[in-house]
């Protein structure tokens, strides 16, 4: 890639400024809660921007632009029907109960609601997933620095670890969330600049439509026919919108952790809900570039379609803007890496180390363990990253693993919060049974992951209900604050739970 002085200056300035800004928040970290939950001081606007920074990664830029090049506007379903309703559901139903429970992780909540076995299974699944995804993110980051700055790949990986590690290890969630705010602004500025320049080049929105529609008549439709192999409308609605998307927005540790660090219940809910507004504009940054590339160059075929985004940067942007858009691309990557790193350390510290290895140590001890684990995951990511090169399908495999347990996880969490009759054995059987169903459908029926998610969700719900109805109900004391409706009309209990969540009481 051609690199000019002004572009290099912008990229280097950005990569130096981010860790310096992040390290500033070290001064606020004195306890385990400060480190993992930002001392429960995050306001709603920081939470919302951090959620979107975490959600949008470099793979979204590449994959979504490539998807838009192939299938058109249907790719935007992942940002619209595949996100916005689920974010409302998460904000108004799930987040308040996680927050009230005063937990650090989603598996910890499931452990309180059901039993330790459910917590351990969930913690191992999510912990392994996050650790593997870190390696993939690191490799992508190393490749970008190698391609753009010409750094050898090993040096690029270490540079990534230094940039992210310095502030994630020292400042914890507060540093991660605050840097995410800056990264999101950089992403939007770079992305909007690219989109405006692209639209101007193709003759505006109308010009783009006129260039694409004659050869691709379905490229401006959100729903595609059922015989479309990748985006059939039924899969989009039943698999994506009803199961996978709520599973992501209501149960994903890296997403939910920001809301657990909120300064109050309202901020936790508002943070998740307000994130839906910038989320609606994400197709402008990741889908429109794919369509613009198609309008400018309809000759990309096969795997080259996935290079729609780099093609646009290379062929469209003048000096200065290329550096800005590259910085936006790196911002997307780094904001996902730091969140994944922090969440992986939180899960392993709280749900494995603190639960099974050292149960009653001092606050300072767990703070140090959190920092050591964050460092260990950095080293792991540097070592594991090159492995992803040898197995190009590893990211797809990770996503497949995610879809295998996402449907059952969402099913037991939904029933756990909405149905007080769900018992610990119902939850455990629902989780294990749902994972068995999705694994069977994948291995023997070779179904699309969208349909697998739907049927494993339904199966998990049915199993949970049947087993719950034939086992002894949970005592009401155990369910207070964990199940919708039980505390709605009891103001005193609401206040006690609110104080407990803020750490003001041990009740």
């Amino acid at each position, binding site marked *: 890639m051609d690199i000019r002085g002004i572009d290099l200056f912008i990229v280097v300035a950005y990569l130096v400024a981010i860790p310096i800004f992040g390290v500033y928040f070290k001064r606020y970290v004195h306890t385990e809660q400060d480190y993992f939950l930002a001392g429960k001081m995050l306001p709603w606007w920081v939470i919302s921007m951090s959620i979107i920074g975490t959600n949008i990664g470099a793979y979204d830029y590449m994959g979504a632009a490539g998807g838009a090049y192939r299938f058109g*506007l249907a790719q935007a379903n992942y940002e*619209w*029907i595949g996100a*916005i*309703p689920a*974010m*409302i*559901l998460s*904000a*108004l139903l799930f987040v*308040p109960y996680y927050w009230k429970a005063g937990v650090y992780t989603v598996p910890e909540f499931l452990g309180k609601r059901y039993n330790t076995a459910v917590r351990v299974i969930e913690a191992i699944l999510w912990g392994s997933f996050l650790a593997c995804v870190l390696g993939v993110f690191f490799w992508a980051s190393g490749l970008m620095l190698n391609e753009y700055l010409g750094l050898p790949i090993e040096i690029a990986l270490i540079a990534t670890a230094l940039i992210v590690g310095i502030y994630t290890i020292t400042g914890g969630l507060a540093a991660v969330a605050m840097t995410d705010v800056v990264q999101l602004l950089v992403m939007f500025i770079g992305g909007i600049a690219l989109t405006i320049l692209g639209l101007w080049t193709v003759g505006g929105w109308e010009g783009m439509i006129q260039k694409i529609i004659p050869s691709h008549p379905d490229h*401006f*439709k*959100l*729903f595609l*026919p*059922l*015989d479309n192999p990748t985006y059939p*409308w*039924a899969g*989009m*609605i039943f698999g994506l*919108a009803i199961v996978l998307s709520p599973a992501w927005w209501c149960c994903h540790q890296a997403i939910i952790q920001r809301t657990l660090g909120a300064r*109050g*219940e*309202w*901020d936790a*809910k*508002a943070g998740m*809900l*307000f994130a*839906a*507004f910038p989320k*609606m504009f994400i197709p402008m940054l990741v889908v429109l570039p794919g369509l613009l590339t198609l309008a400018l160059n309809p000759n990309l075929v096969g795997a080259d379609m996935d290079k729609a985004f780099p093609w646009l940067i290379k062929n469209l942007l003048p000096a200065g803007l290329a550096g800005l858009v590259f910085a936006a691309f790196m911002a997307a990557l780094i904001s996902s890496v730091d969140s994944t790193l922090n969440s992986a350390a939180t899960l392993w510290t709280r749900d494995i180390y603190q639960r099974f290895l050292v149960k009653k140590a001092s606050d300072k001890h767990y703070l140090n363990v959190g920092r050591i684990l964050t460092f260990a995951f950095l080293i792991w990511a540097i070592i594991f990253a090159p492995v992803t090169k040898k197995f190009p399908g590893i990211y797809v495999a990770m996503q497949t693993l995610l879809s295998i347990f996402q449907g059952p996880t969402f099913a037991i969490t939904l029933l756990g919060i909405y149905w007080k009759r769900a018992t610990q054995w119902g939850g455990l059987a629902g989780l294990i049974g749902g994972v068995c169903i999705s694994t069977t459908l994948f291995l023997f029926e070779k179904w699309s992951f969208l349909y697998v998610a739907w049927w494993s969700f339904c199966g998990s719900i049915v199993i949970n209900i049947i087993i719950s109805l034939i086992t002894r109900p949970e005592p009401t004391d155990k369910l207070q604050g964990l199940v919708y409706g039980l505390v*709605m009309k009891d*103001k005193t209990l*609401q206040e006690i739970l*609110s104080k407990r969540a803020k750490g003001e009481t041990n009740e």
Partner: protein
Amino acid sequence: MSNWFRNLPLFWALLIAVAGFLGMLIWAWFRPKAYIYQDAPDQRWWRDLRIWASLLMLIQIALYVVFGT
């Protein structure tokens, strides 16, 4: 059953989606006011999260009506 499903016109996708958005909007308004404002610094109208949810759903309906099929 499978053939019947496959022969459904694309318009049904739009109908199901819009019904889902409207359902979510109505569901949000069934949340009690005290639950929505829990822990809020004050009770100003713009802090009512049901209004935020409604705005989001109305924008989604508009986008899917324009680009859905």
